[in-house]
């Protein structure tokens, strides 16, 4: 192995504790849609990737979970970092990926992702969206599992068609796409079950 295969950024300083803590935050975020969880364990990451995305990838991805990279995250530094620390393979087709990691939600076509099958809805693609802030986008009202009645909240900046696309995909249940927004301050989840209405 030569040094060209080794990134300059370290992974978790304590991989067991940090990844368990990160996983706990993901569970919290997933079970309380629209409610931010975090901050996640700090980990140094390549320039184009924020530490929260890095922590999520290091926790969730492994040899059996192919990654699809897009936007400014689709670069050699990120690929080197993730393959060294997670061993995960990369795929060119978004539909083959367990995790789609992108900072370009406008360019992301949800119909290219894998929604799973009715027998195995868990084999769907989970989107990890790198954002600058967990708010600043549309004000919405969430309802569905994990929300007691309705929860008003502000989402990150989203492409205009996002909410319509989201509601159109809800009939796919139990199949569907789960979405994790990852900002430096923490993580916010939109699981496939959540219903989003404009406030």
């Amino acid at each position, binding site marked *: 192995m030569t*040094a060209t295969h*080794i990134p300059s950024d*370290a992974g978790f*300083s*304590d991989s067991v504790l940090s990844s368990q803590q990160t996983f706990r935050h993901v569970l919290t975020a997933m079970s309380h849609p629209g409610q931010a969880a975090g901050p996640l364990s700090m980990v140094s990451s390549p320039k184009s990737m924020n530490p929260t995305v890095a922590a999520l990838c290091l926790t969730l991805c492994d040899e059996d979970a192919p990654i699809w990279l897009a936007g400014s995250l689709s670069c050699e530094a990120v690929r080197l970092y993730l393959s060294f*620390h997670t061993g995960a393979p990369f795929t060119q087709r978004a539909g083959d990926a367990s995790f789609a990691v992108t900072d370009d939600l406008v360019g992301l076509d949800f119909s290219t992702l894998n929604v799973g099958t009715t027998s195995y809805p868990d084999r769907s693609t989970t989107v990890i969206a790198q954002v600058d802030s967990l708010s600043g986008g549309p004000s919405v009202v969430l309802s569905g599992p994990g929300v007691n009645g309705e929860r008003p909240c502000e989402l990150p900046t989203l492409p205009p068609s996002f909410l319509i696309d989201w509601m159109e995909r809800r009939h796919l249940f139990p199949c569907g796409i789960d979405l994790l927004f990852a900002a430096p301050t923490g993580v916010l989840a939109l699981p496939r079950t959540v219903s989003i209405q404009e406030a």
Partner: protein
Amino acid sequence: MKSENMPEAARQEWLAVLARANVDSLETAWADISPQPSIKHLRAPEIGMVMVQGRTGGTGGRFNVGEMTVSRCTLTIAPDQESMASDRLTGVGYVAGRNRRHAELMGIFDALCQCPKRGPRILKSLISSMKIEQQESRDADARKVAQTKVDFFTMARESGA
């Protein structure tokens, strides 16, 4: 990075020596190094399993022999105080067994051996002496085994016996 210019065979050789080295002698050698470089772990020492594969007679199809425990570590060192971030040297350690410290020390010495200033001295004193030691112990084992070597052959039966 620096190691791109290193002749690969030379590095393979010292890695092989370090991987088989005695941990205590590595520890002593490390204590003797001054000034000690600052170390940053890229992958903290960890224990895992690898599947060992083999070929019958070295030519047959590949098959899984079994799993073995391996400790590994990747780190970078700053060879001296005034070195820049880009001058950091990357060392890797992969050793058989569960001794994380061995993997770490192997990584440190791998990085030090790549250092243009300190490397040659370490290679000359430490690595070459360990190499001779390891070769001698292998030879001693080989001699011991050779004494009790049995050459099998098939005896032809006498007809009618």
